[in-house]
């Protein structure tokens, strides 16, 4: 049973795609940090905090995309029958 558990990968399905729990927690953490971080370090007059937050979100997204591998097995097939 214990060995069986080890074999089981740490992946689950959310929103119709497969994610690894650790990566998901990491991604939420990183994105929240960059987004809220951007919002708080911005000069304190509208609309700067929101724009900085948005930029932070994009930065977080890029960081996550670079460091987390998608969990999809991908193959290309020739067209035609």
């Amino acid at each position, binding site marked *: 049973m214990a060995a069986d558990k080890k074999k089981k990968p740490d992946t689950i399905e959310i929103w119709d795609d497969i994610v690894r729990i650790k990566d998901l927690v990491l991604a939420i953490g990183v994105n929240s940090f960059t987004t809220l971080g951007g919002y708080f370090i911005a000069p304190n007059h509208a609309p700067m905090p929101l724009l900085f937050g948005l930029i932070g979100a994009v930065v*977080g997204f890029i960081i996550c995309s670079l460091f987390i591998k998608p969990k999809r097995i991908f193959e290309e097939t020739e067209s035609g029958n």
Partner: protein
Amino acid sequence: MDLILLLEMIVAAVAAALIYTIIGIIPGTDETAVLVPVTLILVLAGIQPVVVLCFFISAVIANNLMDAVPAAIAGIPGGVMASPLIEHAQLLKRKGMADQSLRKMAAGSLIGVLVSVPVSLLLSLLLAKNFISLAEMIKDYANPIFFAGAVLLALLSKNKLLALVSILPFTLLIEGLRYLYWGIGVVPKGTTVFISFFLGITIGPVILTLFELMDKEKREHLRSDQLRTIALQKMHFEWKWFNPFSALKRREWLISAGASLISCFTFILSPVGMTTLLGELFSKRTKDPVDRASIAVSSMNALANATYLSGTLIPLIALGIPLSPVAIGPAHALFDAPPVFTATHNMYHVLSHTDFILATVIGAGVAILVAYSLAIKYAQSICSFVFKRIPHEAILGLFCAFVFLLAYMDAGWINIGGVLLIGLISGMLHRLGVGYGILFMVLYAAPWLVSVF
């Protein structure tokens, strides 16, 4: 209208088309959840309303068109609006016709836009002219109407009794939190916290799953040891494919155009529902399975765009209150984004008819140019890029971060807990079969419903 503004609109439309080309392809992305936060942030950041509208129109079209791309070449839906046609797309793919299927879908989208933009604009301008008094009257009764809408949607849903019974508890949850915030003073009395609750509802299912992960037993249960295998069919490109009419038979484009036209008049009904209903209705009578699937994929893509555009434009231009499932869902930020837009001061009030027409035409034109040519020429490379490089975790993380930020902005740190609570409950209700539409309507009607007692 000056040149700089015009330029801004074009830039916004191009940006939207590019961003939502990527988002559209990502499997399983819910339209409301991906469209609202971004539009909302643009509105709140003080971007000119006409530029935001242009961005939104372009985003909708690019998103709907690109939803179909993975459906055609990989057999998986890119989003909710692509789910009705997935069976037909899989059939065509099995027959080795992925490239034809893709071109039919793209051409269908094009027809949907070409039909619904002029028809929706015309219809809404006519309605706006003749029914100003009607719009004023509806406004006075907006809250009871939203309540009636929730009841009606509940009666039409799969789990009627469950949906009906959950209306009052959900109302109490929302109003309970609002009164709590007033009571402890994080929000000035009378200010209605709305947007973050709205987003909480949208990402409810994700929040519920995240909570379940914290339970050991559930976690074991949720585990799936199979990675998703995606088989992409290679395609060879020919320049003549750019002609949309070469992709469709006469019958296919006639049906696509006809279905789009009908769906403009049924803008108050659910877009997924109408797409399924009309698409199946028109394709059902064809005997040959390949012909039937071809009609289905082209007309359903036309319908996806037509339902979204009419559902956005008609309430926006003619009424100024979000009286359609699209307006109350994905297009919500155009109607209500306090403090910039409120029920009595939104795009309906600040934009002229010329603004509406220009923003729609530019947004739709740019989206079609960008997304259509990308879909036809680069579908395969974009798909492999997205599938290989964009992890699903990053998308989920991004939208959770948006929700946290907007929750904090609405009512401080405590509201992050509030939004999690709303997400948890609405995720549970959603899983039990209570649709988003019902929950959104309840969110609107809640203050009125409580005042009745």
